[in-house]
């Protein structure tokens, strides 16, 4: 600790250069904090233990439909309190850039999602209207919809038997999400599966996935195994998983989150290594006479090596911690804008731990060469400016 003022003074010897380097480190670790949090969130949904709501999909692919007939059989599994189902629709409102999730839902869906608050009279109207639809408040606000409006969607997968790709829904209700961190889920639209099943030209009797609510005290692992056992060795084998794992699988239809995060971070940290390494090399080169003086007055080679290494680690540590802290502050906003796919209150501990390991590793790597140079410095040559 007694050397801290010496290291600090060396670090800020060239304030502009140090601050610019720090900003690069902050940006890199902000990006790392946010991307790795998303990766962790998507990679941490596999364990069903402790879950009270699970999703049943085809074992082979979530775009593979399951028979509606499973509904009653799943309902009969001990430990299952309630079952609902849904089917991805993928309709477009006016323009493909207006994307929002929209899907057909079976009866009882909203009972499984009590966090979606719908006024009772609107829910009743929805249930009484065959072409009725419910949208989230954020979506209604985005397109200026009010209850009673007609919402036309263009089908991209399921054409309508009578009207081709044009489907029209009557907006019966608007739901709000109670948890402010999940506001992104208000960007969805749901409508009756019965209407979808009867009118779509691709055949009937299929659903995309089942949602299962467990009875109090039910063993999630046991229930999942029993449900999957129903369809074992059939042409529609199932996979029962948590909602988080389902969301992860859903997103991975479009992209491998882990791979993308790893690739981006590899590029970012490689650039950071070059940048910070150059800063440290330049900082030591400029201080050769000062380092020679330290050795002259009795600092050992090892002490000089240590001073430069700690300086390098401190540079990355300050920037890295600021970056990770900023990511922690910004993560709720990312969660809110993920349409419910990510539910992260902040940067998870796993990301913090990985971030700190990276900080130490980068600090050591970028500091090692300049530190070795400082350690091997010949006092007489350095003082003579050779």
């Amino acid at each position, binding site marked *: 600790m007694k050397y801290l003022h010496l290291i600090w003074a060396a670090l800020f010897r060239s304030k502009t250069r140090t601050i610019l380097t720090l900003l690069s480190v902050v940006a890199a670790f902000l990006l790392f904090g946010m991307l790795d949090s998303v990766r962790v969130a998507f990679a941490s949904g596999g364990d069903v233990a402790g879950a009270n709501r699970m999703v049943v999909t085809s074992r082979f692919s979530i775009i593979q439909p399951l028979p509606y007939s499973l509904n009653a059989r799943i309902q009969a599994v001990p430990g299952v309190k309630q079952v609902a189902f849904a089917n991805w629709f993928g309709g477009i409102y006016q323009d493909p850039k207006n994307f929002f999730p929209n899907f057909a839902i079976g009866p009882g869906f909203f009972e499984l999602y009590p966090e979606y608050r719908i006024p009772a009279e609107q829910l009743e109207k929805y249930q009484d209207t065959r072409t009725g639809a419910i949208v989230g408040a954020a979506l209604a606000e985005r397109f200026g919809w009010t209850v009673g409006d007609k919402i036309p969607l263009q089908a991209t997968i399921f054409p309508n038997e009578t009207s081709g790709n044009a489907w029209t829904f009557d907006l019966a209700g608007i739901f709000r999400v109670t948890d402010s961190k999940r506001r992104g889920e208000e960007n969805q639209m749901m409508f009756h599966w019965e209407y979808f099943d009867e009118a779509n030209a691709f055949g009937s009797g299929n659903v995309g996935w089942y949602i299962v609510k467990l009875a109090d005290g039910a063993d999630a692992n046991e229930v999942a195994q029993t449900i999957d056992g129903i369809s074992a060795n059939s042409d529609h084998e199932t996979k029962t998983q948590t909602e988080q794992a389902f969301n992860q699988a859903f997103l991975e239809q479009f992209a491998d989150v882990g791979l993308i995060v790893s690739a981006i971070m590899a590029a970012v940290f490689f650039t950071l290594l070059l940048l910070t390494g150059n800063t440290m090399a330049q900082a030591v080169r400029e201080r050769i006479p000062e380092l020679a*003086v330290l050795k002259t007055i009795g600092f050992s080679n090892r002490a000089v090596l240590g001073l430069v290494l700690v300086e390098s680690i401190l540079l990355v540590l300050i920037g890295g911690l600021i970056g990770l802290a900023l990511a922690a502050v910004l993560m709720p906003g990312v969660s809110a804008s993920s349409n419910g796919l990510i539910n992260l209150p902040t940067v998870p501990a796993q990301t913090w731990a990985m971030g700190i390991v990276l900080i130490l590793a980068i600090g050591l790597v970028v500091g090692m060469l300049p530190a070795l140079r400082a350690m091997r410095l010949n006092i007489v040559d350095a003082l003579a400016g050779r």
Partner: protein
Amino acid sequence: MNTLIEIHDLSKVYERGKERLEVLHHIDLEIAEGDFMALMGPSGSGKTTLLNLIGGLDSPSGGSITIAGQRIDEMSGGELARWRAANVGFVFQFYNLMPTLSAQKNVELPLLLTRLSASQRKRNAAVALKLVGLDDRATHKPNELSGGQQQRVAIARAIVSDPTLLVCDEPTGDLDRASAEEVLTLLQRLNREHGKTIIIVTHDPKAADHATYTLHLDKGTLAEQSAAVA
């Protein structure tokens, strides 16, 4: 007086590629404790090399250097570093202060290698600064001080750990006459009142006059010795 430094048959050869340059040839020299010796000679005569060897900054190619009974030519790099920290104070021509540290913190630097507490280090540095007449400039950074003041801070740094020996390489070479006089008078006082053994390398006969005697080096050999008038 007791002999502090004994140099016997000292040689120094630099080899740069195929070139072999013998800078010091078989020097024999004794310096007593409490001496104030000036080392003069033309450029390239080996003055700074001899000073560096006495200060433990460089290793001889041959011969021996014994200081206060210790053979410093036989010490390893780490041992030499510890020996320098405890026994030698250095003053350079261009002061070589840390530009980002205050005068006080610059003077404290050698004390970081000791077991003294922060408050003791601060107190000792304050005493050293007072001794060189700069106690009112403790918080100033080097660029806020004149050349003479910076050199006095460097002297305070050299004496703060109370070394037996002060080695000074052209300590007045970058100063105007008045500042140089102040610095030389200060060194003289450290020698007379505090018993420091001082060796200065200089080109300036007026500076050498402040020493008790002067040795002349020429082409790596001790040429003559003359007593100063001071």
